[in-house]
């Protein structure tokens, strides 16, 4: 199918193997788990092949002591939904920013940064999006129990 | 005012009393002027006395949808084609200004020479109206005033 060929091509550009998933079960055409240094090359390859960013968020896995950065990509013409999970350690969560490649991801990264405390390197805009400017708490962490 | 011959007072008659008609007119005019000023100032005074007042540091700040405004107010610009309105105003204003004394003494007989002089004066000022006519200010177009 031409769609998966496009995805395969994009992934091959970034040097990643393509592993399809069952779309009716997962809602995704492909699900990957990468290291932080592969995020930017993958984003560049996807951008040049016509993909767009759906969302950038994170999941707090308290028991396993890590965050997982979540990137969802999609395509306008063909049904190609790609999920990328990037595990980072919980004590010092740092992820590379794709704000320079996908400008629409900047607001997602701002929200993820203020809600989880993840630092996005070289993000064009790293102010708080929803919380007040002087907020020093991260509400969506699993061990957050309120401001008091 | 009635037609009176102009009387020449010598220097020894400087201590003579002023013309009673002029004094009465001056009195009426000054009452009128005073009433005009009071008419303008009375609402301000009434407002000061009768209105409740807001007193806080932000009452006089620039409204910017609740945000703090920055930058100079001179960044607001308006089109230079409004100079045409200034032109029309000056023409009519100066016209009227110089026609007032002419109207004052007209009945005392200026003769044909005076009439022609006045006509030439008005015609010269009419040139400005012709200029504005050529610029098209008398035609109010449907769309926004285009820059010509």
């Amino acid at each position, binding site marked *: 199918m031409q769609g998966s060929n496009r995805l395969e091509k994009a992934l091959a550009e970034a040097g990643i193997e393509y592993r399809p998933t069952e779309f009716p079960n997962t809602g995704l055409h492909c699900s990957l788990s990468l290291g932080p240094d592969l995020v930017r090359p993958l984003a560049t390859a996807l951008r040049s092949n016509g993909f767009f960013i759906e969302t950038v968020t994170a999941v707090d896995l308290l028991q396993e002591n890590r965050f997982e950065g979540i990137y969802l990509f999609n395509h306008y013409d063909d049904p190609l939904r790609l999920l990328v999970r990037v595990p980072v350690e919980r004590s010092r969560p740092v992820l590379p920013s794709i704000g320079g490649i996908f400008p629409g991801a900047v607001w997602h990264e701002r929200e993820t940064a203020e809600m989880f405390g993840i630092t996005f390197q070289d993000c064009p805009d790293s102010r708080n999006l929803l919380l007040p400017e002087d907020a020093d708490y991260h509400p969506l962490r699993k061990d957050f129990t309120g401001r008091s | 005012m009635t037609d009176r011959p102009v009387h020449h007072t010598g220097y020894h008659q400087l201590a003579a009393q002023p013309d009673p008609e002029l004094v009465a007119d001056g009195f009426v005019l000054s009452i009128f002027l005073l009433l005009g000023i009071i008419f303008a100032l009375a609402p301000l005074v009434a407002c000061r006395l009768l209105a409740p007042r807001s*007193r806080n540091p932000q009452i006089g700040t620039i409204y910017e949808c609740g945000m703090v405004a920055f930058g100079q107010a001179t960044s607001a610009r308006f089109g230079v084609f409004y100079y045409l309105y200034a032109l029309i105003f000056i023409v009519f204003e100066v016209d009227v200004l110089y026609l007032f004394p002419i109207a004052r003494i007209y009945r005392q007989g200026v003769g044909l020479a005076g009439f022609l002089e006045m006509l030439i004066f008005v015609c010269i000022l009419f040139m400005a109206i012709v200029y504005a006519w050529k610029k098209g200010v008398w035609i109010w177009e449907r769309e926004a005033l285009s820059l010509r």
Partner: protein
Amino acid sequence: MGTGSTLPPVVHFGCLEQIFNLARANSLWPLTFGLACCAIEMMSAAGPRFDLDRFGAGVFRATPRQADVMIVAGTVTAKMAPTVVRLYNQMPAPKWVIAMGNCAISGGPFKLDFNYNVIEGVERLIPVDVHVPGCPPRPEALVEAFLKLEEKLTSDRRFPHPPEIPRRS
């Protein structure tokens, strides 16, 4: 005259103030300050079905300089709080505030232990004259809020006895 940062007038004329209050009550110009879902009900109250214009309150001003009453319609977050206070301060006296909806009264559904961003009630920021409960309140409730505010100004209520709604029994 509204409370907070407003000072009463220098000279009080009893009869004149009654006339002024009557005029003010019948021409309360609101400031459009819809923050969340209650804004939809506020717009609906300004619409043709639940007309606010028949009470003189249909002219929603976009600037606080021309507004009499500030309808806080929706959730006030900690990020929006300084803006709310600044707009209230920029309104000239006399001014009133209607807190519309549960969020503006007390934080509404967000009044929890782990609430981190919602101001629990706009009364913590600015003085409120009328509270309109509901999530969201019906447009008729906002109309009733205006009638209550008029009653607060003139001590004389328009439609004191609403007509009986015929019920099928």
